[in-house]
């Protein structure tokens, strides 16, 4: 009760401008990261599901590497590691690139599983009509397997958004970075992190509502 009674709304109002700026940065990295992660996942998932030689193994190694190392290590590697090799990336590039690489690995597995769940007999129906392998993928496996994969991609997309908060550690001015700065100047920790949680909840709920809407629009019947 004591904490709630002393809840200082004015700290949040006063910081609205700064938080909004952080929100925009979160969204910039997050949206680019999610869109690219979907693209990476679609392409690599297709290579995996169709067992395209060499590329399949490369994609599998990439997935293994990313899923089995902490994302923070990956961010630090891009930001502090690559310059040693003479590759200097600015903060924003590392921001969207690191979460793309991380999200892409999970999306690859989501789409691989979806494509592999397409019954063989439906692919055959496509081939029997005269489709080439590419046409079969574009018009049969992709639309059906993509729909199967959609629910699991939501979780990955949400994780990508939430992981943008780690970008504060390389100084990318996203939401968590901004909130953390304000609380260290004002010492209003509780207020700032409450506001931060509300921001993230709003983003994640909006995102999942959007994808669930898509899911309903594209729904397949239970048995096919």
């Amino acid at each position, binding site marked *: 009760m004591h904490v709630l009674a002393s809840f200082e709304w004015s700290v949040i109002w006063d910081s609205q401008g700064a938080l909004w700026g952080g929100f925009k940065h979160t969204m910039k990295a997050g949206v680019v990261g999610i869109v690219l992660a979907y693209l990476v996942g679609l392409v690599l998932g297709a290579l995996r599901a169709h067992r395209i030689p060499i590329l399949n193994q490369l994609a599998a190694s990439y997935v293994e590497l990313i899923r089995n190392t902490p994302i923070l290590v990956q961010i630090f590697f891009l930001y502090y590691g690559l310059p040693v090799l003479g590759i200097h990336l600015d903060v924003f590039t590392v921001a969207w690139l690191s979460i793309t690489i991380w999200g892409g690995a999970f999306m690859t597995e989501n789409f691989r599983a979806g494509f592999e769940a397409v019954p063989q*007999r*439906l692919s*055959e*129906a*496509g*081939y*029997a*009509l*005269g*489709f*080439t392998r590419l*046409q079969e993928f*574009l*018009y*049969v496996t992709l*639309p*059906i397997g993509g*729909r199967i994969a959609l629910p699991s991609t939501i979780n990955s997309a949400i994780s990508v958004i939430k992981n943008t908060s780690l970008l504060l550690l390389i100084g990318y001015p996203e939401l968590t970075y901004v909130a953390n700065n304000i609380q260290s100047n004002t010492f209003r920790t509780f207020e700032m992190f409450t506001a931060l949680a509300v921001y993230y909840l709003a983003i994640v709920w909006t995102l999942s509502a959007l994808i669930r809407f898509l899911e309903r629009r*594209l729904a*397949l*019947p239970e*048995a*096919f």
Partner: protein
Amino acid sequence: MNAQAAAPEAEPVVRAEDVRKSFGENVVLDGIDLSVSMGETLVVIGPSGSGKSTLLRCINLLEPIDSGRIWLEGEEITAKGVKVAQIRQRIGIVFQQFNLFPHLKAIDNVTLAARRVRHMSRREADARALELLSRVGLQEKAKQHPHQLSGGQQQRVAIARALMMEPRVVLFDEVTSALDPELVGEVLVVLRDLAETGMTMVVVTHEMQFAREVGDRLLFMDDGRIVEEGIPSDVLDRPKQERTKRFLRRSLQMAHSLEELSITDQGEVE
């Protein structure tokens, strides 16, 4: 019904020579020779596992053969370097499980390949698809998705889909086996009408009445070989080979009553 008119020197639509196919140790096709004339309805019967379905899948190049050769209208389709996807456009196949694309409406199932492979305009494709759907009695269902249709209706859409590519021959792989009994008739009627238009057809089936009435010629397969062939009523009523006799006796359709049958020590129905 239509084959007798074909001149003897006319090129068969499908010809197979000594086709062999094994899955591991299991020999599925053990030297099949086959010829299907223009306009002919060839019916293939035989016990399950006799290689009937595999034969169709080999003709459509869905299964690679181990040895032998297959020709379509005189062109060898088992030769190296043939364009498989192009060959398959000329060979329609209808599957036991219908295999309609679940995300597409009936009409889009029918038009998909014509639009994507033949680059037919949507307008032209839709008009032709509606024609075909009305031929199989489903014009009103054009906008429905497969799961909204009965099994018999789905199978008729699948037939329209195969016909859309204007195939030279259509292969039917036990197309009524997955259907509830009361839905079998509507599919067989479509097949009969199609045969009457002069379409070249190879029909793998367990429907003996259909084989008798619609087939121009009947093959009995067992153990990957063609055991007997001839005019359907001849083979069905006066089988020459012992294996054919046993098969026909065993299939309930040909027994006059269940009481005539019993299970032998080997677990077989006699």
